[in-house]
């Protein structure tokens, strides 16, 4: 039973094939990594799966439903969530407010209730705040709850994005380079968080350059090069694959 299936996916940007005839599957409850040299198309792939880009050809099947061309918010309501390589934090809000936005689909969104400030809104928000504080604690950011995000350190913001993505109560979480720009200590923090997320039964798909992290936590690795699948398999299989070694060292 697969959670996510990508079939013959291709994306062209004016003549450049960023993703070329890519197919793979992701099983539920696994940590699945996507690696490859810079420019291999990893973020483009994420954008295609999460609806930020529309594929030129090919299809995406999520939870047995064809979701090709669905908008990101439609995928969010189906339990897909992600973080961004270039932080997309809501800098006009505090940390906890960022996480509370993540819970958007689970809250009362009635205009009339909001306009008149009905008690159900206040109760819902109070509840939400509690849950979100737990999430901040989960990623180790409880102390920053009411801090303005524009005064938080970079490493903390990377973890905040994860907390926000978790607030959507996802079935599958896509993390785009969660350790990018972090020092070894911060990377270890993120590592721990990812393992905790997976232990909650959430399927994790990871794009990473940090090989140590990837080899250590992944159940399955997909290697991309020039938008195409180079190979896939377990950490052991991939590590020893001569094509992978060549691609990274420049062949």
């Amino acid at each position, binding site marked *: 039973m697969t959670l996510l299936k990508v079939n013959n996916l291709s994306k062209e*940007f004016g003549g450049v094939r960023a993703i070329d005839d890519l197919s793979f599957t992701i099983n539920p409850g696994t940590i699945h990594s996507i690696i490859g040299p810079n420019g291999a198309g990893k*973020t483009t792939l994420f*954008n295609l799966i999460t609806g*930020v880009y529309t594929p030129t050809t090919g299809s995406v099947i999520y939870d047995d439903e064809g979701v090709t061309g669905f908008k990101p918010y439609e995928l969010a309501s189906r339990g897909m969530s992600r973080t*961004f390589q*270039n932080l*997309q934090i809501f800098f006009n809000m505090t940390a906890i407010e960022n996480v509370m936005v993540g819970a958007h689909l689970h809250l009362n969104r009635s205009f009339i209730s909001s306009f008149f400030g009905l008690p159900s809104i206040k109760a819902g928000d109070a509840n939400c705040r509690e849950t979100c504080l737990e999430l901040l604690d989960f990623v180790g950011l409880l102390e920053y709850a009411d801090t303005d995000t524009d005064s938080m350190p970079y490493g903390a913001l990377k973890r905040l994005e994860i907390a926000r993505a978790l607030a959507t109560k996802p079935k599958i979480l896509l993390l785009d380079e969660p350790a990018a720009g972090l020092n070894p200590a911060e990377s270890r923090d993120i590592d721990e968080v990812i393992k905790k997320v997976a232990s909650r039964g959430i399927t994790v798909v990871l794009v990473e350059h940090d090989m140590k992290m990837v080899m250590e936590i992944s159940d399955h690795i997909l290697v991309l090069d020039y938008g195409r699948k180079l190979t896939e398999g377990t950490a052991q299989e991939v590590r020893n694959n001569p094509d992978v070694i060549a691609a990274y060292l420049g062949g």
Partner: protein
Amino acid sequence: MGAEFLQFLFSGVTLGATYALVGLGFSIIYNASHVINFAQGEFVMMGGMGTVFFLGLGLPLPLAILAAIMLTTMFGFALERFAIAPARGASVVTLIIITIGASIVMRGLVQVVWDKEFHSLPAFSGDDPIHIGGATILPQSLWVLGITVILVIALRYFFEKTMMGKAIIATSLNRDAAMLMGINVRFVLFISFGLSAALGAAAGILVAPITLTNFEAGIMLGLKGFCAAILGGLGNGMGAVAGGLIVGIAEAMGAGYWMSEYKDAVAFVLILLVLFFKPSGLFGGRGTERV
């Protein structure tokens, strides 16, 4: 029928040339600083009103024109130095309001230092209409068209062949890279504003003999010049020129063949159409946002 069409065409092209110059001024400033200069119309107004003033002081027409252009250019420099540069990094809305404030200040100054009356300038080479193909065209219109063509060609040369011009283009493409190449970006901004102001003033002077000028003359002209710039593609100088001509001709045709009361609406309907279907303008390229 043919003569009527020709008549509308002539007035449309004359008007269009004015819009083209105003739009060109917008583009130059937008390119250099990504600021929409809502005071551009006031530069146009200052050209015309300034010339009237200097004529009143006794200067002969060519000197009065020169003085007016120089005065307006000073205002352009002042706007950049005292209003835009200190506000760098402010949001789009804030910058828009700053330039609107500048336009109010300039109208206020003209109102106080000169007056609120309507004025006219003498035509450069007389008022006798010329007859072509059953339609008439004022000699002043030929001046408008001729000078506009000369200015556009001169600017083309300036941007493509001179160091300063190329520096302006480099800054508009990538400000940081330009700085790293040793281009004095602050100076480029400064010059751009001055150049735009001078262009605006020229437009105002060319047109003043045909239409009357007063302290409020810049408002609609500015807005329509803006439409010309958007039509052609914000930041595309030649596009602005083409846009100006299109707006001018469409206005004249619309007023002549359809409803003259809705003449002013034409420019704005055109930009709504462009913005809905091709926001980058008729001659603008396409872009994608990187996530």
